[in-house]
């Protein structure tokens, strides 16, 4: 998809009164926790347990 195609839509604004701000907040927090959880497991559990090599 091209950049012009990825634009925000004004039709949506009229129908539901703005962009889905609540949704963005929920998934935003989720995304942060997701990445944070990964980093925590990686650095605080996986790395201290020792590396496997060939």
């Amino acid at each position, binding site marked *: 998809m091209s950049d012009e195609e990825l634009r925000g839509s004004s039709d949506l604004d009229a129908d539901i009164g703005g962009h*889905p701000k*609540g949704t*963005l907040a929920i998934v935003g927090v989720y*995304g942060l926790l*997701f990445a944070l959880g990964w980093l925590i497991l990686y650095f605080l559990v996986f790395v201290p347990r020792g590396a496997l090599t060939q």
Partner: protein
Amino acid sequence: MIGARRLALANFWVAITAFGVAAAMALMQALSRADLALPWRTPKMYYLSVTAHGVLMALIFTTFFIMGLGYVVTERSLDRPIKLRRVGWASFGLALLGTLLAAWAILWGKATVLYTFYPPLKAHPAFYIGAALLVIGSWGWSWVIIHTYLTWKRENPGARTPLPVHGYMTTIIVWILATIGVAAEVVLLLIPWSLGITEKIDPILARILFWWFGHPLVYFWLLPAYVIWYTMTPRIAGGKLFSDPLARLVFVLFILLSTPVGFHHQFLDPGVRAGWKFFHSFNTQWILFPSFVTAFTVIASFEVAGRLKGKKGWFDWLGALPWGNPAFSSVALSMIIFAIGGFGGAINAAYGMNAMIHNTAWVQGHFHLTVGTAVALSFMGIAYYLLPRLTGRELELSLLARIQPYLWFMGMLLFSVSNHLTGLAGMPRRIYQFDYGGSEIADQWVAGTGISALGGVLLFASALCFVAVMFGTGFAGKKAQPQPIEFAEPLETPNNKAQILDKFWIWVLIAVVLIMAAYAWPIGEHLATPRFGSRGYSPF
């Protein structure tokens, strides 16, 4: 009333029955976790019931439910009768025969090989033949849906495929690409070997073929749940689908990414070079993307529902959603659970970190969130919606139906979070006992297993509610004029032209190229290496 009504219902009833039996098996296992000295509690019964639970839930309940839902969704959204209904009935018969054969072998203790059936564990031939018949039956069903779709396409040249069918065609494409692997494993390796025609089997080749199938299998389960989330739940919530084209993009990404990823189940296998595992791990991480997009689109569709009811704040629209309607609450709770399950999945599929949790209790914790809740609870929720509409009866015991999703949600949180933690602490999956000669290390798992047992009891109570509502409605519900089965309208109606995302052949071609790169090459390499085979063992 839809024409394939009886066919759909027949599939649903097999699914619900399998679910009920499997849930009873699960209760035995959950109590086993609490280490109670129950009279039936022997290693033989435990491993037999783990096998039965896995096969009945993951293969029988899901497949039959997906077939039944496929008939309903296809007929309703194309607004034309299902073609080849006789083929549909024959497929149902074959799949049921296969189910009965495999169930006999398992319940009579002749196939305690778990639902992964890794050779050289050797089951009775009836188990493998039953599995093959189930798959052949599902292929027949696939053909019925594809044929109906193609007939609709001829009648509506150039028209946009309705989204529910777009999702179901994706499901079928993923299923066919996946089952090539297991069909090869079962027909070429396992059946001749279990019948004594061949003496030895290569366990790694069998595992490669199994996981060619085993990972896309999870998307065969998940995609119909996504069809429900995208096309049915927003309507039930009183909203509209937030984005139709992005839903199609998500479906197409699953066609591409489902299969060339199976080695992330075999990270710790000898005999497969590290580079191939890294390649599959790389591919797998991309699958996060379509599911992240799904989270946004579906939640935004719910937000639309709240906005249409006049809610203006950041989160007040959440309160305006129909939390008392099990067809909605089941999906909303499924999505919360799937958010956690997705995180665990990313760890499972991580090239290095997998070793930290491979084959530990973490794994059963993980897939009970994904297939065991995101998929199964969504199916239960939509069953509350569909059964009255298909049988022309009112939902019986509706109070039980209302609390059931919440019971499942709580039970699964207890079961699954505790399993993730005990898994991280090193407890293996699928063990009858974890005493290990009084090991102090193993003793640290006890708190977690106790909590998971409690979760299991709640889950069983929830399963009982579901089965009671289903049979109560199906056989004793008050006759009523059935309401129509309706799909969510997109927020913006797209034009009615077929777009590139509707042209399945393009995506199938790319998917085949990816599968060749991910599998044909390593399998070729493997076959070219001199190997030893294994005789069969049946230590059960």
